[in-house]
């Protein structure tokens, strides 16, 4: 992400952003990017408005236009009430929204977001998602990284799952789920009886901690068979998600 944002030099290979080489024309590229970093780095010496106005000035936006843009964006991220409040008085969610607004001061051609909703409560996350979808609807290109797979499933048209710096799969979220995790998942408790029962029935399963998962096209049928033949205490059926794809592809071991 930092290499795309022309902040870190590229380590190897070739890189082209907006058709330009980050080594040759970093300022030209950066003028057309909007970056939401993972870390909150708003300027504590300024108010909400001051942050947007000052940042716009770094992009050589004239004062009048910068002032107008700052107020417009405060309204867009619903922070007009906090216009003249210093940064330390904003909540975590407000800060993230202000950073999103800051990334938009230059009407970027590409918006780059690094874990935009990390550490936010559900309301704050939904508000950020809503704003991102509004931007998407206006035809903006958004590149985002996230560990929240529900976020990826909601927002992305195209997504890449990476592990240890390598691309594992690429595609639309729904297609990836269908392809790698099946339609639906049936979960039953992990006991020796149930495992042997599943083996007898020749049903493929996967052990996930204290649960056993069966990927299927028709969870109803599998659930019925399981209930009739294996007598589990509880059976849960649910649609397969990106999280299932991710865990299947990258394994369940903690990555540290």
């Amino acid at each position: 992400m930092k290499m795309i944002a022309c902040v870190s030099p590229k380590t190897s290979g070739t890189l082209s952003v907006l058709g330009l080489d980050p080594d040759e024309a970093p300022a030209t590229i950066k003028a057309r990017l909007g970056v939401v970093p993972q870390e909150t780095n708003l300027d504590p010496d300024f108010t909400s408005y001051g942050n947007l106005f000052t940042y716009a000035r770094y992009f050589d936006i004239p004062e009048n236009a910068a002032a107008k843009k700052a107020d417009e964006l405060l309204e867009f991220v619903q922070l007009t009430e906090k216009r003249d409040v210093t940064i330390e008085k904003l909540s975590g969610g407000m800060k993230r929204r202000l950073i999103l607004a800051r990334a938009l001061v230059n009407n970027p051609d590409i918006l780059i977001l690094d874990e935009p909703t990390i550490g936010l409560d559900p309301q704050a996350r939904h508000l950020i998602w809503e704003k991102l979808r509004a931007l998407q609807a206006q035809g903006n290109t958004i590149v985002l990284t996230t560990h929240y797979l529900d976020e990826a499933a909601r927002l992305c048209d195209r997504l890449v799952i990476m592990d240890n710096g390598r691309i594992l799969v690429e595609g639309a979220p729904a297609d990836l789920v269908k392809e790698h995790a099946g339609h639906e998942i049936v979960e039953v408790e992990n006991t020796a009886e149930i495992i042997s029962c599943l083996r007898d029935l020749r049903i493929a399963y996967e052990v996930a901690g204290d649960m056993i998962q069966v990927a299927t096209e028709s969870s109803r049928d599998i659930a019925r068979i399981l209930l009739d033949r294996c007598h589990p205490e509880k059976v849960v059926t649910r649609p397969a998600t990106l999280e299932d794809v991710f865990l299947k592809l990258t394994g369940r071991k903690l990555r540290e």
Partner: protein
Amino acid sequence: MPNILSIPAVSWRARKVWHRNMVVFARTWQVNFFPPLVEALLYLFAIGLGIGSYVKEIEGIPYVTFIAPAILAIAVMNSAFFECTYGSYVRMYYQKSFDAMIATPLSIEDVIAGELLWGATRSVIYVVIMLPVLAVFGVISLPFALLAVPLAFLGGLMFAGIAMCFTAVTPGIDTLNYPSFLFITPMSLFSGTFFPLTLMPVALQYIALALLPLTHLVAIMRMFTLGTVSPVLLLHLVWITLITVLCCIVAINLMRKRLIV
């Protein structure tokens, strides 16, 4: 990868960084206005008039007039040095302001150059506030002493560059205390400030001239405030200019190395 002495590609955008610091400074101008005023008065009363009543004259000059340029030079040193050590470190490390700036068309070189120029500007502001106080006490010769203002910018830039080198290599904010106490404080005493350099052993005089930047700044400042210029001025000026250019270049390259990963 550029090495430590390569000429950094600084663009005119550096002035945006300077301007950001200026705006923050101007907003709290009441707070920033008093320290130079008070400092000038403290030095004048405590050392100038206090010690001065015993010392009377040094090299045929009233003691308080002798130390007036030292008050200015020390102010130039301190304001630029502390701005570009603690001030810049806070903006870099705690506020992450540099990270935010380099996501815009500003490059890291622009950011550091802007910080250095701002450090020099702090020195100029300090001197501009102090000059009238010294003038009221009649210890500087006007209008010649007004040259202290451009000199403050050059001297300020030198100490800003030196400071930024320390900031670029310091592991944390606490370790910035070392250059402050081991370099800046002794320098403000042994650079021909409150007593002439010639009182020290010859070897120490040479060391002071070779290694203590303040020595040269005080020497020029004294010529300006007394209104008596000698050709040695050029030597001092060349020394300061060389060190300024060198330190600013090294500072920008070191900072680049620290921040671009």
